């Protein structure tokens, strides 16, 4: 197993990650059920790549992202991360190792407006993490902060300003710089541009790409917008109701999707016509079922335009395609088609 990871140069390997939120009710806060926000997800992230994560609102993208940076503790599963040349489970580290791991994995959040503490200036927002992670010299820290701000195309003297003096785009760039201040290897970007104006989205995305190239960063890039993900990612995982339903390289997924859900998502974005074939627009009907009480069988069958009898009773397993082992799908149709 490890050998396989070595061969693929895997940085982070998620194994059967589950995150259930208890639903509590009544005066005694009895647990009456669980929101299965992430339900048995297995993925790996290769060093230096960008893994895109797409899905509708509420499908568990943020939850999965927060499990990776350990803001949430998964209900079960393993997070294996490559330290030097050894893989360690992030969920069973001791205190010191844990702090070290926090330096390696950082996150950029969805809402740039709540990501910065309104009463602390930028300098303070950067200074404390630096201090914790071993920058003991105050002058060095200040130089580092200036350097970071400049690397996201902001002026160094902005560091004494307060968050309310910045625009959304500037804030998000500051957040990116903050995430990078401890020299992380992996950054989970949770819809970093969805709160921004379309005109500045491209600017921020390009900045992120440049930084990645320059510093050899690995990204887990979350979005609900397939075109943004497609632009950013090397590989894309499509999530539906807490499960990954399809995973393939970005290029392949775009034309050789297998899962009807991916098809529906893709059909919603306008694409330049190549080869003359016009893609049919598929409108997903009905609401996303509640993650507290997901449908039996394939979770997508209630809204699937290709649903069959077997889908209602039997959940498809997440398996590689015959002709392309790097392309994985959880759909009865896909497996049978290739079988």
């Amino acid at each position, binding site marked *: 197993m490890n050998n396989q990871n070595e061969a693929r140069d895997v940085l982070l390997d998620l194994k059967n990650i589950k995150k259930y939120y208890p639903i509590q009710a009544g005066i005694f806060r009895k647990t009456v059920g669980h929101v299965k926000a992430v339900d048995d997800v297995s993925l790996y992230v290769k060093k230096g790549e960008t893994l895109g994560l797409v899905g509708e609102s509420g499908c568990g993208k943020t939850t999965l992202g927060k499990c990776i940076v350990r803001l949430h503790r998964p209900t079960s599963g393993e997070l294996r991360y490559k330290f030097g040349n050894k893989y360690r489970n992030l969920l069973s580290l001791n205190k010191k190792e844990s702090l070290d791991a926090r330096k390696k994995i950082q996150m950029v959040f969805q809402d740039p407006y709540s*990501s*910065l503490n309104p009463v*602390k200036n930028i300098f303070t927002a950067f200074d*404390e993490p630096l201090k914790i992670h071993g920058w003991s010299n105050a002058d060095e820290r200040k130089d580092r902060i200036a350097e970071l701000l400049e690397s996201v195309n902001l002026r160094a003297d902005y560091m004494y300003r307060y968050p309310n003096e910045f625009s959304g785009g500037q804030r998000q760039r500051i957040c990116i710089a903050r995430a990078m201040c401890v020299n992380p290897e992996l950054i989970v970007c949770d819809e970093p541009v969805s709160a921004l104006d379309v005109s500045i989205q491209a600017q921020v995305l390009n900045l992120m790409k440049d930084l990645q190239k320059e510093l050899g960063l690995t990204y887990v890039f979350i979005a609900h917008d397939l075109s943004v993900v497609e632009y950013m990612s090397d590989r894309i995982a499509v999530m539906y109701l807490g499960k990954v339903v399809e995973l393939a390289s970005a290029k392949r997924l775009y034309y050789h999707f297998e899962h009807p859900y991916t098809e529906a998502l893709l059909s919603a974005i306008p694409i330049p016509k190549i080869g003359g074939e016009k893609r049919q627009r598929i409108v997903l009907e009905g609401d996303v079922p509640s993650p507290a009480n997901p449908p039996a069988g394939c979770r997508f069958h209630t809204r699937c335009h290709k649903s069959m009898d077997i889908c209602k009773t039997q959940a498809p397993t997440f398996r590689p395609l015959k002709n392309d082992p790097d392309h994985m799908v959880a759909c009865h149709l896909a497996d049978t088609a290739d079988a």
Partner: protein
Amino acid sequence: MATALVTKQKRIKKSSLAKRNLQKLLNNKLAVLGLFIVVTMILLCIAAPLLTPYDPGKISLFERDSAPGGEHIFGTDKLGRDVFARILYGGRISILIGLSGALGGMILGVVIGSLCGFFGGILDAIFVKVAELVSIVPQLLLVLILSTIIGPGVPNLIYVFIFTGWVATFRLVRGRFFSLREESFVEACRAFGIGSLSIAFKHILPNCLGPVAVQLTLNTAGFILQEAALSFLGLGVPTGVPTWGNIMNAAKEIITITESPWLWIPTGVAIALFVLGVNFFGDGLRDVLDPSQL
């Protein structure tokens, strides 16, 4: 190069948030007026020995109940004590009780509120109930029960005020914590491995301090009024100690109300003026710190 630039900028911009708020506060006429009233009155009380030659406790049976004018600006009381001196020296104690009760209550409320708001759970549930209980029993009665248990006296009254005064601050801080702890900047802190207590007190708490300061002014005003009411009834500070409430105590009798108004009108005005100043200042503070304008 960047560093040179930064060092230069540092001096100019370092405390801009506090400075800007202070500037706004100073532009608010009512707040400045309030501050002026409060500070002036506190200074007058502190400087009492310079302003009046009389000892507030010295009984002088020859000058009983004399009307204002002449040697005694506000006249003398039934025991011949100088009313002006009593108001000045009494102000010291009344203000001390109000301020320290409010400050103590604030500290208690901030600490408990932060911990409950940040960690939630059983601790939180317990304190919410306790707060509800403390706030539902009329404060005056609570003070009565407590002073039967611990006895009268200035420090005891302060303890009682602290015990009853933390609730408002607690509610406020707890509520702000509940909403702030979900903010992404808190998660960013956690992602860096910053400890829980540090997040609660160094990162979230500063966001609550505006409303806490406003609450502090409200409590100060409230406690000064309560001390006055309690001592007026003869239940607060022992009668020997001059406080604004104790001076007003004389006005329990109709004869004093009609015949010796100098005994109670100046004192009542002093209380109202001080509390008015505190309230003006608090109102101004609230306007300045309005989070929508932050």
